[in-house]
């Protein structure tokens, strides 16, 4: 499989996945680049069946994003620089101007999900992975992956019920 083809099809989902452990979109892109290049050049993908490459890349990107967090924490400790103020909570999705209010609400509630639920949601909805593929990458059972997805949807619905824009937009 050609790497360009993979990026065309899954690049934005990988960036969204990395975004969960990154301060902003640019950091998430850097994590994707690091993770992608790392596994591609390592030759590890030669031992991965073609249909498992994309799920494997999600894990590689997560590892790179977490490595970057650890490095950032060390820099912060050394230089006593706070980086939280650089966190940009939005910018996860291409917002459709025709549905801007509604989509911004959804983006906001997605970002409020607990990490383990949001992770499964992103892999399932935008990564288009099966529960079995998600389970293999997260080292959990398929039932647990499905449960986390369900909890995520229930929680999203609960958060959206509290939002007047979501209620009026007919999301529920």
């Amino acid at each position, binding site marked *: 499989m050609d790497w360009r083809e993979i990026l065309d099809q899954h690049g934005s989902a990988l960036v969204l996945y990395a975004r969960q452990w990154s301060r902003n979109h640019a950091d998430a892109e850097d994590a994707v680049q690091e993770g992608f290049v790392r596994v591609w*050049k390592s030759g590890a993908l030669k031992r991965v069946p073609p249909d498992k490459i994309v799920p494997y890349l999600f894990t590689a990107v997560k590892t790179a994003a977490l490595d970057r967090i650890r490095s950032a924490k060390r820099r912060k400790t050394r230089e006593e620089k706070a980086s939280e103020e650089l966190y940009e909570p939005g910018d996860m999705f291409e917002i459709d101007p025709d549905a801007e209010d509604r989509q911004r609400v959804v983006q906001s509630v997605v970002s409020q999900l607990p990490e383990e639920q949001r992770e499964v949601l992103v892999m399932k909805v935008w990564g288009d992975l099966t529960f079995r593929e998600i389970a293999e990458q997260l080292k959990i059972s398929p039932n647990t992956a499905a449960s986390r997805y369900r909890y995520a949807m229930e929680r999203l619905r609960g958060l959206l019920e509290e939002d007047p824009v979501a209620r009026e937009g007919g999301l529920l």
Partner: protein
Amino acid sequence: MSDEFERLENELHGMQPRAMSERTRRGIEEALAAPSAGRVIPFRKILFRVGAVAAAMVVITTIAIRLRAPGNPDAGAEPMQVAAPAPEYIERAQVDTLLLNSEDEGIIMVGDNQPARRVRVDLVDRMEWTNRASGRSMQMTRPRSEIVLVGLRTD
């Protein structure tokens, strides 16, 4: 997943994650085209080296402590052997190494396209010599850094 969440799922599927920038795409292309550099030190070799250094430090520190211990019949009895012979009245009183910091600098690609974890270790060697005749002492500290590459399994 079910009809229960159908509308919500449709809404989520309709939202497009932000696209990857052309800058990142070019960066990936350049990185994939660039040759790998560096050399992997097999983990067993690293363990052996670290173990040898640790054992040497334990021996040196133990001797230094014994020489300095009050009431120790061996204290000051024999000067330590050093690479460059010192006058007999010069005694090495203290030798130790402090670990200041170790930092995981992430994973890099090295020779044969193998991933390796790069770890920087900051150390300070402290040495002290005492002139038994005059009672004067001289201290020396030597900061140093070491880079250790730990080979990673990719299977």
